[in-house]
């Protein structure tokens, strides 16, 4: 029972962390139709920027400045890179972001070295908020929860309640119409991309010290974020939110539930012995494959429903 409660809490927290990253990606995709492979790279840059700023000025300054820097970088990438690639179609855009992710990783390696940098949780938040059956929940995890919930609310309100949100949504479906109404569509795109990049940067500021800030962080975080976005339905913020939570819970509970296909078969009266075909595979307990379940879920989702959970159009 106590394990269950702690696991629900863990799942929620992990899911919200995923959502912080995935929301920016979803935003960019829903507006521009670009699956941005470099999104996790901006997340990584956010963490490194925050590290550099916080060791000089302090964490709270970094919390503001680092996402802005990432946003600026995003604007530059959109204006000088993506827009050029866009002329050659969506595949070129995808490949461009893929190549960008590759280069950013190598550059980070070059600038900050291949090992982790000492980017730490600020002392103001480095205390235990409360304990559940003796398991401490740190104030920083509460902070993460708070920020990601605020982020969800802010994006939601921005898109549905503001004039800019309407322009953004209209730019997606009727770019020509919006342009003829006097709005600058390329600028809308730049703004959105910069916004998405800033969100990734914010996730980096917050996730970088909670997890570890190292050059492999983009490469190891990128796939799972993709999975969340694609599973939730490309371009759907609500779907992305639900998918983040699902993935958070799936991974958390997979660790706790110690069963394997062989156990299930045993319950059905089929004993798995080493001689059984694929015995090695059947005997794998759930915790061992926990981190791969999202990939499995994504593949099945796409095969059955290519638009994802709440997607509005096919992937």
């Amino acid at each position, binding site marked *: 029972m*106590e*394990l269950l409660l*702690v*696991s629900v809490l*863990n*799942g929620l*927290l*992990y899911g919200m*962390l995923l959502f912080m990253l995935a929301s920016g990606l979803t935003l960019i995709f829903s507006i521009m139709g670009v699956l941005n492979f470099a999104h996790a790279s901006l997340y990584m840059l956010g963490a490194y920027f925050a590290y550099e700023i916080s060791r000089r000025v302090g964490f709270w300054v970094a919390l503001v400045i680092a996402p802005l820097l990432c946003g600026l970088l995003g604007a530059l990438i959109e204006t000088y890179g993506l827009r050029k690639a866009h002329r050659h179609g969506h595949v070129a855009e995808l490949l461009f972001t893929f190549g960008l992710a590759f280069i950013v990783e190598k550059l980070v*390696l070059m600038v900050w*070295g*291949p*090992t*982790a*940098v*000492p980017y*730490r949780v600020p002392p103001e938040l480095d205390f*235990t908020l409360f*304990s559940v059956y*003796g*398991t*401490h*929940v*740190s104030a*920083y*995890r509460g902070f993460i929860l708070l920020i990601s919930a605020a982020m969800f609310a802010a994006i939601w309100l921005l898109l549905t309640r503001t004039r800019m949100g309407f322009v953004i949504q209209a730019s997606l479906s009727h770019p020509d119409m919006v342009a003829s109404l006097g709005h600058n569509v390329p600028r809308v795109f730049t703004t959105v991309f910069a916004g998405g990049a800033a969100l990734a940067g914010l996730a980096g500021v917050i996730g970088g010290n909670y*997890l*570890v800030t*190292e*050059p*492999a*962080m983009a490469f*190891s*975080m990128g796939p*799972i974020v993709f999975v969340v976005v694609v599973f939730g339905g490309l371009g759907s913020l609500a779907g992305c939110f639900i998918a983040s939570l699902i993935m958070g819970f799936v*991974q*958390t*509970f997979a*660790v*706790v539930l110690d069963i394997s296909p062989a156990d299930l078969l045993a319950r059905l009266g089929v004993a798995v012995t080493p001689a059984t075909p694929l015995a090695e595979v059947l005997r794998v307990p759930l*915790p*061992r*494959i*926990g*981190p*791969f379940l999202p990939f499995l879920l994504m593949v099945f989702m796409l095969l059955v429903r290519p638009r994802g959970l709440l997607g509005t159009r096919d992937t």
Partner: protein
Amino acid sequence: MFRCMLAVILVAFGAAARAEDSIRIGLTDPMSGAFAQTGQQNSQQAQYLLDSINSKGGALGRTFELVTYDNKLQPSEALIALQSMVDHNIPFVWSNAGSNVAAALIDGVEKHNARDPDHRVLYFTAGSTAPELTNEKCSFWFFRFVPTTEQFAEMLVRALPPEVKKVYLLNPDYLYGQAMQRDSTKFLAQYRPDVQAAGNELIPVGKVKDFSSYIAKIKASGAQALITGNFGPDLSLLIKAGTEAGLDVSYYTVWAGTGGTPTAIGPAGNSRVFALQAFNDNMADEQGDAALKDLVTRFRATHDYDFDAGSWRAMFELLQAAIQKAGSTDPAKVAQVLEGMTSRDMLGHEWAMRAEDHQVLMPYYVSVFTKDVKYDSEHTGLGWKVIKTYEGKDLALPTTCKMKRPAT
């Protein structure tokens, strides 16, 4: 590094009739990509140690020369690097990172030596720890100067203090981690029948971001100590999540001392994290040897990272002695002499190259991450302090190796 590479190019183009009077060691490790720094630091430390050996005369009146080849941590690339070394008649091949690379090289060297007996090479490693390399896959041409993971498991189990009655095992899910898990269980039964394994977990490498759920599970199990073969982010994330959730266990790790991990763990790991080491910067002061102290002091003065490869000096000295005794750099002769050879390292412990499987029996240490040291690690303010020393002969384990020796 660049000098070495340029040297390679010079050889490649046959521009200079290279003075064949130096004894060349071809080091292949990842020199580019995510593990480049490991490879580079390895080669720099090796160069530092070889310089010191060369200053005392080298072997057969010739000096040692290190030539590096990038293998990108890919077996196929390592085999191409081997080709390159053969082209340049380099007799000694050395690699550290990756048991996949080592397995490919053992196999590659074995076949090459059989197919081209005029240009044979000797291969050794100081970093690949998979037990199979000196058991099922053992080869006359291969020597290992590092313990196996089986020995690691034994060392960790024997380091558990008597008050620990419940341990949790958590290891990466591939051959290495699965072996760690199996061997830890075996040695627990052998040395500590009073200790109960409260849990047993395999995790995919580099895929888990949030270890909180594992921590919850460990906490629920009531374990007092954690034995883990995790490394890199998988290790630092585990320890971070544990200290943050207030998990009260000691972490018995294999790799917490390796590059970047101390930084990532930080002060939270004080007196809680234990690591297996062949060497650390503080040993010279603790165990007092003037020459060694000098070696460490000079290293710290000229390099900005931990001198974790100090034990390689004993390895090079063994190689040096073997060449001296064989009177030649012919790999077959050197290999023959190296079998069964012993020497003492700078701390006075014995190193022995076991003839039956070419597995070294060398001293090894359990250290704790603590504030109470002279040299800190990676500017964290904490460093490594030895709490337990194993002599090589104490770690001897049976081998299944059936060595095939060449006829001549």
